[in-house]
């Protein structure tokens, strides 16, 4: 988490906790959302999940990372068969952006 090193270690923990909690809430909401569909898997990409995942991937690198965790938790929390591709897209966006930034900062 990029911002952790800025604050003192104690406050870090607090914000990290907040991030986890919002992530878990994202999971909750995703789970609830995905129960609107039938139990079997249909191969289609959910718009909401995709948007939130991409949003989350972007937001995780900004000071709004707490909300970002919520958004990226949304597709992950969806029940099995749903939201996997969306989550992977979001995660890959995050990883790519992080690497770019890291590369930009260091070299």
């Amino acid at each position: 988490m990029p911002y952790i090193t800025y604050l003192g270690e104690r406050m870090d923990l607090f914000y990290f906790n907040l991030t986890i909690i919002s992530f878990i809430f994202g999971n909750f909401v995703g789970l609830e959302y995905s129960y609107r569909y039938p139990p079997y898997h249909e191969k289609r990409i959910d718009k909401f999940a995709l948007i939130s995942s991409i949003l989350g991937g972007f937001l995780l690198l900004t000071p709004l990372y707490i909300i970002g965790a919520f958004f990226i938790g949304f597709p992950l929390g969806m029940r099995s068969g749903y939201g996997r591709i969306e989550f992977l897209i979001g995660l890959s966006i995050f990883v790519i952006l992080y690497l770019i930034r890291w590369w930009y900062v260091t070299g």
Partner: protein
Amino acid sequence: MIKKFVRKRSIHLCVVNTGGCNGCDVEIVSCLAPRYDIEQYGIYVHNNPREADILVISGPTTLPWIDRVKELYEKVPEPKIVVAVGACALSGGIFKEGHVLGGIEKIIPVDVKIPGCPPRPSEIIEGILKSVHLLAEKEKRLKK
């Protein structure tokens, strides 16, 4: 809000065979199988009435079971609901004339009924998932 949500998504089952032919029980076992995988809905089958939220009853309630089922029902902590699976549990099915009570409804209140002899695993899962909402709303009903 969280309470309601959590109750919906985390469920422990207690399967009670009150003297049926095993058909329904075998189908419930099939629900555990990877194809249907009841656990993906957060439903755990562990026959411990103390942990259970949902009492799944299959079988036509033979005479020795009458008292025991009542005891079991008492043991399950609130909020609880009862799901009757299969023809036997609903009405006694083919065993109406035998040494059976016929229908679990005569002893304890039944919330959800799943007909069939036996019902398919997917039907059982569907039935249980539908009963989940009742579980979340049960507390309000209790208060009333």
